[in-house]
């Protein structure tokens, strides 16, 4: 195993820029690692060996020509398969998009290419990002590098496992209800959901448009911030993109690394202080809160009375939006077509195609959404959920008048065994209990690894006000400076 794969993205970028190592060597080291371990981890759905080497050589050629390289130029990255990548298979882990090669790049992808970063391939996920374990992928599950009998979280389990297993130093995820943060927590990696509108949704295959947020995945807080800085910022192609400058998350991460949180006010969400969480998770969380106090933070308990309704509201809003968004998979413009035998009508072909192309969880959510939006049920379900969303936002606004950030465990339980929660879909939904409120509010949140419970990683979630992404990075970096990072056993 090459030592290069153990370096952080910041270190790799600096070495490449200084000419200590070539981008091609760094890329090949990661491709070798993928070849060595991904048969067991299954983090990737597609590895672009040739494209990666070509992109790396282009960076090396620029450097040889005397061009100044950016901080992440030549650094490899894995991309969640829900992000459109021009000419590279993009399936959202669904059979309905098997073999689809998008004719364009997502904005996130364009920015990654412009930064000179090297895409290694596309990572596994729950189909259309609906799930919390990556078991709902149509192409088989991903296995947690900490324990290959356990799930890597979801929906972005492939991105988190690739980073935890040293197959990539960085990855892109998307977070609709916790799909970046919960995989981060259970794989001992860092994952950030930026402010909604802070990163562009253009080219992200839509699940729930009012919630979907692309974001960075890495092994350190600084690396996460460096990638955040690359992908964030206004995009005229996304009408919900916020036309404001990106908060300086890299500077905030560097400031936080000093470990001084004097004067910072941290709120513990009272409603998330134990109920439903594993004792081992709560024990690590309590130790972390004590560590925050030692760093100088002032810690107080804050009540957010409507957070208990976030999960039910989310599981009405997200399916409603998905039932509408996934109508585009109609067997006409892209993807699968089934039953076009010259006799079946268009409507029959659509129904047969969608039946064959979608997995169970996607079908369940489409049906729930169709129900919640139908006349007669709209007011009681979708309409009421939107009102609850307002009340959750008010809870956040009122909390941030008293404290700078809110903290909670990222997820109630550590990585569970494959198959443990698939029989009862609602048990799977509980993995997102603590992450969902932030999505409904729209603010940023980050999960940072803070300890182990019975040998498995536990994450701390830090939630900040809208467009105060820098604040959560400062605190995450301070926590990291005192608890360190966590390395899984050798694969």
């Amino acid at each position, binding site marked *: 195993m090459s030592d290069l794969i153990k370096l952080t993205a910041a270190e790799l970028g600096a070495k490449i820029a200084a000419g200590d190592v070539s981008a091609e060597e760094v890329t090949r080291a990661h491709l070798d690692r993928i070849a060595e371990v991904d048969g067991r981890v299954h983090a990737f759905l597609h590895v672009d060996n040739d494209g990666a080497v070509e992109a790396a050589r282009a960076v090396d050629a620029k450097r040889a020509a005397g061009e100044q390289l950016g901080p992440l130029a030549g650094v490899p990255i894995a991309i969640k398969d829900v992000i459109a990548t021009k000419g590279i298979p993009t399936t959202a882990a669904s059979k309905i998009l098997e073999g689809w090669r998008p004719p364009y790049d997502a904005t996130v992808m364009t920015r990654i290419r412009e930064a000179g970063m090297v895409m290694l391939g596309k990572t596994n996920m729950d189909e259309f990002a609906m799930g919390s374990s990556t078991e709902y992928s149509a192409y088989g599950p991903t296995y947690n590098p900490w324990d290959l009998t356990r799930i890597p979280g979801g929906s972005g389990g492939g991105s988190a496992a690739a980073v935890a297993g040293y197959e990539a130093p960085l990855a892109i995820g998307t977070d609709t209800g916790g799909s970046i943060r919960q995989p981060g927590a259970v794989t001992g990696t860092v994952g950030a959901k930026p402010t909604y509108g802070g990163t562009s949704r253009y080219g992200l295959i839509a699940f729930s448009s009012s919630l979907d947020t692309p974001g960075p995945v890495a092994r350190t807080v600084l690396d996460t911030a460096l990638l955040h800085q690359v992908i964030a910022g206004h995009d005229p192609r996304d009408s919900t993109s916020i036309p404001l400058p990106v908060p300086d998350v890299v500077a905030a991460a560097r400031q936080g690394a000093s470990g001084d949180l004097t004067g910072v006010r941290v709120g513990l969400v009272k409603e998330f202080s134990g109920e439903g969480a594993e004792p081992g998770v709560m024990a690590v969380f309590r130790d972390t809160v004590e560590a925050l106090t030692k760093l100088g933070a002032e810690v107080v308990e804050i009540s957010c009375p409507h957070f208990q309704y976030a999960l039910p*509201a989310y599981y009405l809003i997200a399916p409603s939006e998905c039932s509408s968004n996934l109508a585009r998979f109609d067997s006409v413009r892209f993807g699968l077509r089934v039953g076009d035998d010259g006799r079946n009508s268009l409507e029959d072909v659509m129904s047969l195609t969608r039946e064959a192309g979608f997995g169970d969880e996607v079908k369940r959510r489409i049906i729930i959404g169709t129900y919640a939006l139908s006349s007669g049920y709209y007011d009681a379900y979708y309409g009421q959920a939107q009102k609850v969303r307002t009340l959750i936002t008010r809870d956040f606004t009122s909390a941030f008048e008293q404290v700078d950030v809110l903290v909670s465990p990222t997820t109630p339980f550590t990585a569970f065994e494959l198959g443990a929660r698939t029989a009862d879909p609602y048990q799977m939904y509980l993995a997102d209990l603590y992450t969902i409120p932030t999505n409904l509010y729209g603010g940023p949140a980050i999960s940072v690894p803070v300890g182990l419970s019975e040998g498995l990683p536990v994450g701390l979630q830090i939630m900040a006000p809208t467009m105060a992404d820098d604040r959560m990075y400062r605190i995450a970096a301070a926590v990291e400076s005192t608890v360190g990072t966590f390395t899984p056993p050798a694969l």
Partner: protein
Amino acid sequence: MAAISREEVAHLARLSRLAVTEQELDRFAGQLDVILQSVARVGEVAADDIPPTSHSVPLVNVLREDVVVPGLTREEALSGAPDAAEDRFRVPQILADEE
């Protein structure tokens, strides 16, 4: 009492253009009932006078500059289509012959 019946699930599946099987209906009806009973808790919140939130970003009527920018070529737009003919998406028949 069940929140949703097997017949309702079958109806919703038809509306959603999902040709679900009998076995799927058996499986989904129970699962969807558990989910709906759980999410119905949103009804416990007194929210009559609360405005709904559809979106966290308070932007309206976002328009870009009215300038021509390159889009997809016809070949690119058709590149992922299951079937294309005469530079168009080809679809199965919409009306039966006898109509």
